[in-house]
């Protein structure tokens, strides 16, 4: 039994790393644009289908294919931000952006159904099915590679945010949009690029998700609800919080999964509710803004 728990913890950390990448994209978008991107889940699935197409049609390796899918998702993100989210202004902006991203999710989901149908798919490659034996644990190569890539990308995002001029603009916008504009930051550009980056990471998340789970166009709902739970638990807008919460939640889920597989996901949400009862702002959340 102890073995199984250790294995569950290791799995949880590895898978949690990938969720962290997706969650960081979501929480970054929230921090800068003050919107919850409901479409993030279905965008992950879109990323999975892009990888699937590249692999099935042109026999491009999953990891090499990311060189195509990541920029593609970045462009999709920027287009969505400029076309649908930037025009929204005024008092009901929060709810409107939420609904817009829900509408975008519906459209993407519908298009995916139209093209690929409702059949379950899974990405395949030699390293998806084989695993390595380390310290008595069986670790599939895909988890190791994916975890390494996720860690590298999260580190790169951290570097971008904390070591570059652009990152300073992003953080300034997160703290106070009006003040950022006053010191000459181009808010529109920052918002569009941030949204693009937040969406681009879903290409990596989608490839990993597609390789480790079977998916269909409807899988996005399950994903987005997990990601939302993670970023709320970590504290909205907190990147470190998203990392901690991802690993915590996925590990918890995989431990419960040993005994009660069908209840694992309920424990996930129950943990969210419990934590919020004690800390309404999540692990690392800032104090809620006054007025609405």
């Amino acid at each position, binding site marked *: 039994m102890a073995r199984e728990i250790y294995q569950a913890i290791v799995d949880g950390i590895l898978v949690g790393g990938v969720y962290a990448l997706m969650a960081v994209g979501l929480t970054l978008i929230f921090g800068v644009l003050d919107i919850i991107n409901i479409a993030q889940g279905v965008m992950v699935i879109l990323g999975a289908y892009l990888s699937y197409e590249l692999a099935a049609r042109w026999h491009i390796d999953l990891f090499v294919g990311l060189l195509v899918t990541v920029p593609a998702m970045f462009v999709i993100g920027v287009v969505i931000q400029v076309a649908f989210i930037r025009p929204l202004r005024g*008092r009901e902006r929060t709810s409107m952006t939420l609904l817009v991203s829900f509408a975008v999710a519906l459209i993407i989901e519908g298009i995916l159904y139209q093209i690929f149908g409702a059949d379950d798919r899974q990405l395949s490659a030699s390293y998806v099915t084989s695993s390595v034996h380390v310290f008595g644990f069986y670790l599939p190569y895909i988890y190791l590679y994916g975890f390494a890539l996720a860690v590298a990308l999260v580190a790169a995002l951290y570097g971008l945010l904390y070591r570059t001029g652009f990152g300073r603009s992003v953080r300034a916008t997160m703290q106070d949009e009006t003040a950022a504009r006053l010191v000459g930051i181009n808010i529109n550009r920052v918002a569009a690029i941030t949204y693009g980056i937040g969406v681009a990471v879903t290409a990596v998340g989608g490839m990993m998700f597609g390789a480790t789970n079977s998916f269909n166009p409807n899988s996005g709902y399950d994903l987005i609800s997990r990601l939302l739970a993670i970023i709320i638990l970590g504290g909205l807008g907190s990147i470190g919080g998203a990392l901690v919460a991802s690993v915590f939640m996925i590990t918890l889920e995989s431990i419960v999964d040993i005994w009660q597989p069908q209840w694992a996901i309920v424990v996930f949400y129950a943990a*969210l509710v419990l934590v919020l009862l004690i800390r309404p702002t999540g692990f690392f959340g800032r104090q809620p803004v006054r007025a609405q």
Partner: protein
Amino acid sequence: MSQADPQGRSWRGPALATGARAVGLAALLAVAVAFPVIFPNPVVTNYGVFTLIFVAVASAWNFFSGFSGYISLGNAVFFGSGAYALGIAARDWHVTGTGVFALLPLAAAVAALIAVPLGLIALRVRRHTFIVITIAFFFIFQLMAYNFSFTGGSTGVDAPFLPWQAQTYNNPFYYIALACAVGAIALSWLIRRSRFGLQLRAIRDDEDRARGLGVRAMRVKLSAFVLSAAVTGLVGAVWFFYLTQVQPPSGFDPLFDLSVVLMAFLGGLGTISGPVLGALIIEPGQLYLTTTFTNGYLSEILLGAVFLTVVLLVPRGIIPTGGEYLRRLTTRGRAAIPAAVPAVPQAADPAQVQEAQH
């Protein structure tokens, strides 16, 4: 009563306005009552039943979320709970035939009871976090419906059989749904007119200030939340009995949540006629699209595309624009009485925000 609109009433021929409005409402109600007689075709009355069901749930959603500003994306929890409550009660207590209708209040009570703890947890947080928690509740309930044995797992629950003629089967349901819709609208109207409704809107505008002025925010929010849940649960039970079955994905349907919010937004958030109008536009449209394009996905794309187009064409949101237009329509050019108070700050606000954004 008069606190909600201290101005306005005195200088706009109130008797005439109220009279014209009453005549208009009576005419609308008469059309709604006569509808199954004029169009006895079951296909048409089927549209009527579903549309009225959504008029009721959109109104119920609106008198909590629209008035208080706490956007709930989890009302399907109460819709599904009402449906399951009726189904399980009828199954376990062996209630058959029209006797099942007597269980409808039970469905409302179950939904209200569920709403109390959920509200106590969710209403502690605001804005995005509240929205996400309601989504989390929604998924918890869908999963519970799948996993518990008394909910019948993925096969769900079936309703008792009604030995009615196919030709007129829909008509009793039509009138029950109409009663629910009228009840929900009347409840919205009563709430909006009351001190309670005023407190809800004070919470929407600035919760901290409202608390400072003596509004017991938690109690007010929770009451509205529970009331909204009760109506939604009742209508969910009617919906279930009409369809004769419920499964976890149909009772707890994410599209239900989205549709209800969309209806309220399209018509005008926080107004009484808004959600009604939204439901009257969206639900028949959705039904038509799903029956025309049998694969169902095209209707999803179109629904999303229509919504995006509306938002793009009315960039500051449909609420002020659509709401004002709607009010102008219903009052035929006269200034609307309820609009008199919020119209001034609302008109000033987006302009300021827009200036600040550019």
